[in-house]
């Protein structure tokens, strides 16, 4: 294995990693505003991609119009999920909340398959297949585009959480009761975070589908998203960004080194190992908040 192709794996890995960050960002958004770990982020991403296709194919809208319509639709779906499924569970043990997001995961995934079927369909954003040249390295254009979008989203959310609304959302995740006591409408705040997360899922869904097509495997981005989110610290947007790059690079190198040895599929192993190691060594991730314990 020569240095150039290793660097190429690393560079493309970093770009893929940024697109993982986008999935992780959805998880972080919800966690940061309500301390709910959303295990349905993968299937939300998949659902969003199908919604885009539905607008583009059935309604015949041009792809960018379809994406905009899907963003609006998913915003509403996000609000609906919070209203129907999560609101009544506020304050329940984490076991039940996790189980609820798992139930949502199954429901959204199987629901999408029921409606749209399992065959892989392409999504064409009109990005050319020709690689970009970065010095001697060949870079995948779609990944590069995805990375740019991710960084833009990152900038937006960093600003958002400094805004007044963002501070309110962070307050909610700290203490529901205290938030109620100062007149914060906790329900609306949490609903907003789900809606934003659903929008992020739409963008992630579009980017990933343009790379790998629309099918059930989009839901499996959950494992990547969770790993990145935990590695970065569940409530840190910036952490998600860096952790995505880190995971992407490690995966890229690991798969080009390990795959020949282990007979493929070492990416998933790397993910799981990263997740376990993070949790055991540094549960709050690279940049996550510590639980402040004053007894």
């Amino acid at each position: 294995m020569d240095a150039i192709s290793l660097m190429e794996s690393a560079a493309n890995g970093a770009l893929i990693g940024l697109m993982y960050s986008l999935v992780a960002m959805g998880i972080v958004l919800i966690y940061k505003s309500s301390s709910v770990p959303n295990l349905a982020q993968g299937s939300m991403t998949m659902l969003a991609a199908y919604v885009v296709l539905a607008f583009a194919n059935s309604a015949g809208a041009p792809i960018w119009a379809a994406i905009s319509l899907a963003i609006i639709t998913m915003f509403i779906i996000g609000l609906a999920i919070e209203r129907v499924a999560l609101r009544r569970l506020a304050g329940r043990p984490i076991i039940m909340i996790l189980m609820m997001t798992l139930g949502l995961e199954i429901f959204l995934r199987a629901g999408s398959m029921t409606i749209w079927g399992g065959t892989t369909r392409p999504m064409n954003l009109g990005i050319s297949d020709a690689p970009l040249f970065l010095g001697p390295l060949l870079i995948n254009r779609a990944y590069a585009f995805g990375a740019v979008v991710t960084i833009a989203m990152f900038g937006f959310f960093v600003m958002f959480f400094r805004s007044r609304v963002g501070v309110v959302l962070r307050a909610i995740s700290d203490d529901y009761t205290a938030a109620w006591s100062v007149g914060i409408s906790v329900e609306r705040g949490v609903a907003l975070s789900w809606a934003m997360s659903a929008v992020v899922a739409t963008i992630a869904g579009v980017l990933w589908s343009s790379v790998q097509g629309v099918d059930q495997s989009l839901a499996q981005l959950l494992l990547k998203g969770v790993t990145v989110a935990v590695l970065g610290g569940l409530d840190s947007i910036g952490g998600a960004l860096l952790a995505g790059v880190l995971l992407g690079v490690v995966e890229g190198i690991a798969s080009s080194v390990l795959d020949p040895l282990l007979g493929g599929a070492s990416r998933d192993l790397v993910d799981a190992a990263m997740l376990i190691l993070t949790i055991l060594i540094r549960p709050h991730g690279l940049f996550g908040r510590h639980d402040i314990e004053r007894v």
Partner: protein
Amino acid sequence: MNAPITAKILSLNNIEVVYDHVSLAIKGVSIDVPEGGMVALLGANGAGKSTTLKSISGLLTAERGEVRRGELQFRGQSIGGLMPQDRVKLGIAHVLEGRRVFEHLTPDENLIAASALHSRQDMNRNKDRVYSYFPRLHERRTVASGYLSGGEQQMLAIGRALMTQPKLLMLDEPSLGLAPFLVAEIFQILGRINRDEGLSILLVEQNAIAALEIVSHGYLIESGRIVMHDSAAALKKNPDIQEFYLGGAENKNFRDIKHYSRRKRWLT
């Protein structure tokens, strides 16, 4: 024994609260707070003080509690059916027991978060006001609130409540776990806010000595019922209060103390 007739900002009439549909926490509680007044609600642990406050601020629902009976009036308006944020909008602020600041936010952000209902100008004005009452918060406005000292957190909790521009401030055991000089400082500031701004205050305390120094009236709650109501001066002189709440029972032997625990219940 009744308070002189003035306008009431808050009146509770025969409130009954049940948790989890089964356990009765308070029963037949009636309390009046006069406009601009300062009233204490005293009682031992588990007597139902916090429950009373939560029934006023509407935070019971989150704990699966509900007001089963009785009437809650704020300036003549019935507030029983309102959501917590609507009660805050009316001017009811509740400083929770145990401070409960937003730990991962800075004090400044705590104050911002509490201004969800206000314009930016109002927020800035309120912040200035809070910082003038509690200059120490201003010094520490950029550290995570979880790392503030207990006294600073209590000040922040009060300041955060003031950000909602309340007409009635309810405080749940603000002296809990604080050194006496801090308690004195905080109570003195409360007195100032009450005098300068005419803010009505309902103060829940176990620390009767400190509380009776600054309030005009006090209610005593025992096992979910109001058992005594009088002016602060009269309460301080009451022999029962002296024995049980003001530490007047020093030179008794253990046999008598056992006896008290039985006699302590006034009405039940």
